[in-house]
């Protein structure tokens, strides 16, 4: 079979791959985004839709800065996507809340907030202040942390818009195209895929959990593991949640989503025990939700690095090969499309991205 050939191939059609591919696409450049089939694991499908700054990178300032920069550029991304595709991703960025359902939780949260730098913009609200922001909270709610930079979008519309905008800018989506392996070849790289070979001058690995096996083939490293999260979708309701709560949000169509869980489990099955724990917490936060009908529940896999921070890196042994992985595909979508993609296009990642090299996991060995 004759190999298809592109200037840049992005492996992965999820939120990370699609944001980067969209940022790379332009008429003079042949860019392909390789996507898997209908039952791919797809972290994007499980994304809760938060643009979340509070609490991120308290112990790793480069990550805090990268997150904040992305949040700041989100309205620019949303505007561009609407102009280019007509799709409104339902961005709302009026702040977000992390609820504490006991004095003990509030103490733990306050200690975290105390460690945050001023730039993180996170503050503690007591119960009275919170009642004004979120009427209807239950009697267990002791307080909350709040950050004005937080917000939410519709992650499914975002994925759809990124795909549509990528195609509108001249990019090619190749579906059902799982990548089996990738190697350096004539003038670049050759990918062996489910639909035949593909040649590329440059390759961006944004394959989520698939990066773990693909990255080492190009002298890169992506030691990622799966962490399961479960979500409950409730029936549509009149507006009742003016702000997203880290584990509860009301979508633009009125659906209320309740999450989430962090489980060391690589299956995408739901479990009734964890769903019950999520439901119990949501009912304690907003007692009136007890009457709401559950429409569906699902589980998806987060893509976690050992320290939970992203990896962005170009291969030293195979220049032109890049890896990108993170678990905050919505929050970082603006940074990926607007900041990261142009650096990949230029052929080198800037100094601000050096802290995200996977070399950080080798420090113990190097020392």
């Amino acid at each position, binding site marked *: 079979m004759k190999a298809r050939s592109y200037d840049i191939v992005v492996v992965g059609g999820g939120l990370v791959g699609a944001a980067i591919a969209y940022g790379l696409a332009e008429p003079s450049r042949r860019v392909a985004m390789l996507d898997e089939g*209908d039952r791919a694991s797809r972290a*994007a499908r499980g994304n809760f839709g938060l643009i979340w700054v509070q609490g991120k990178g308290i112990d790793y300032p480069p990550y805090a800065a990268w997150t904040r920069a992305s949040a700041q550029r989100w309205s620019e991304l949303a505007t561009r996507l609407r102009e280019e595709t007509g799709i409104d991703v339902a961005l709302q960025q009026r702040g977000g809340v992390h609820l504490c359902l006991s004095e003990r939780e509030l103490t733990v949260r306050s200690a975290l907030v105390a460690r945050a730098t001023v730039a993180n913009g996170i503050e503690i609200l007591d119960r009275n202040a919170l009642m004004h922001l979120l009427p209807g909270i239950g009697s267990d709610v002791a307080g909350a942390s709040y950050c004005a930079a937080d917000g939410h979008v519709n992650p499914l519309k975002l994925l759809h818009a990124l*795909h*549509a905008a990528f*195609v509108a800018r001249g990019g090619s989506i190749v579906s059902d195209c799982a990548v089996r392996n990738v190697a350096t070849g004539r003038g670049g790289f050759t990918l062996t895929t489910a639909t035949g070979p593909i040649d590329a001058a440059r390759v961006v690995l944004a394959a989520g959990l698939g990066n773990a096996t693909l990255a080492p083939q190009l002298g890169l490293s992506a030691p990622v593991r799966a962490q399961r999260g479960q979500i409950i*979708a409730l029936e549509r309701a009149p507006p009742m949640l003016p702000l997203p709560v880290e584990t509860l949000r009301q979508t633009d169509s009125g659906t209320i989503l309740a999450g989430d869980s962090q489980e060391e489990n690589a299956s995408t099955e*739901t479990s009734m025990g964890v769903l*019950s724990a999520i439901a119990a917490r949501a009912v304690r936060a907003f007692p009136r939700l007890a009457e709401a*009908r559950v429409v*569906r529940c699902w589980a998806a896999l987060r893509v976690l690095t050992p320290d939970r921070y992203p990896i962005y890196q170009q291969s030293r042994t195979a220049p032109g090969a890049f890896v990108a992985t993170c678990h905050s595909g919505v929050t970082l979508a603006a940074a990926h499309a607007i900041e990261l993609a142009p650096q990949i296009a230029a052929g080198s990642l800037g100094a601000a991205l050096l802290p995200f090299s996977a070399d950080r996991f080798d420090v113990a060995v190097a020392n």
Partner: protein
Amino acid sequence: MSPLPTDAVLPAACDVAIVGAGPAGMAAATLAAEFGLDAVLLDEHAAPGGEVYRESAAASAERRAALGPDYELGVAAIAALERSGAHHVPGARVCGVANVAEGFELCIAIDQDAGILKARCVILAVGALERALQIDGWTLPGVTSAGAAQRQLRASGDVPAGPTVLAGCGPLLYQVAQQLCAAGANVVAILDTLSVARFVRALPSAIEFMRSPYYARGAKLLKDVNETVPIYHDVLVLSALGNEKLVSVRFTANKRTVTLIADHLVLHQGIVPEIHLADSLGCDMVWNDTAACWKPRVDTWGGSSVAGVFIAGDGAGIAGANGAAHRGALAAIAAAAALGRIDTPKRDAAAVVHRQALAQSLRGRRFLDTLYRPPERFRIPRGDTIVCRCENVTAREVIAAVHEGCTGPNQLKIFVRCGMGPCQGRDCSLAVTEIIARERGVHPSAVGRFRARFPAQALTLGQLAMLPSSPADRLAVTRLPEDE
């Protein structure tokens, strides 16, 4: 609200849980109990019987006469169930079944309560659901399905007022027409979408059919209806018209387009296996080309691809009430063997009578399946016809998403929300699979179907919160260890 189980309502554990108290589930529960198994029969209705024997538990003398032999069969099955010692739990909605190390956990909702029933084996006897007939205007008030019209007639005796039109195909359409006429409804026409070509296609199996018990009943039904209601055959185009509600029905048959004023339109185009619970358990499904729907892959005992899960009755493929009962019995026999109650020779001996009766009741099925497969033009909608009524998604939008690169139903959910509503795709799943297959030029089995999500039945967040959770489950959610 209080968590289950409470001894009076729901036991905590059993040998075999049977879901659905229709002919298959009643037979399975009865026989399982007779083998000495601790059998729990769960059904959302107040009385056993399922759709077919719905009235057998408490019908008036007049209705008994009208119901004929079905009534007696239902009474006998219910009496056998009561004698058997199986534990029948009425009003129980089975929201989910999980495969756990020691067997299965069923999430049960009863009224405002919810809880878990543990079972070593599960027999799914959930029956069939109607295949939606998606025409222009099918979501208008005044348009209903034959099954819904029949349930309403039985439940309240309410007869639709004003001119009523029935459209589609399949035996139930004619049965409901007969019942509506008998109840005094103003049925102005039946619009049959079957083409003469289907009769030709079905002809090779017609002789077998004429020897089957279906034939005499079917022939009488058609004759009765034909004498009272005008029937239009070979209907090619069909739409329900009106803005706020149904006003008229327009159709084309014999190259003539006709508009009938109607207050009610009753649609039906056959029934298909209800597979949600089996699918969510990971039981293998296969696309059946004759019936144009998914069926679970089962062995001759009803055993699915998941050990310990048996599927009986119409949920394993449409075979009617009598066949369902024998498949229920076979599943119970296999479950008794799997749980060590009987050995293999005893299992095989017990099965003989049911296998013979099953073969008898399957005669004529091939003719019916071939004849009544709904025509493609009514299975696979086009244009602005709504496919997903929960999310208001049209066929045109589905087709556009496929050409944007959506290769299957689950990506389609992401792109256009099709199938994400409260019905979980029960109305649109088959149509979506077939639209994608047609647009991509591949077989439906290569397209797949929506993932079946928990819960399969209505459940509130408060009920979900009543289910037991382990400290590890709670820690995964709070990320804060308890009892520090």
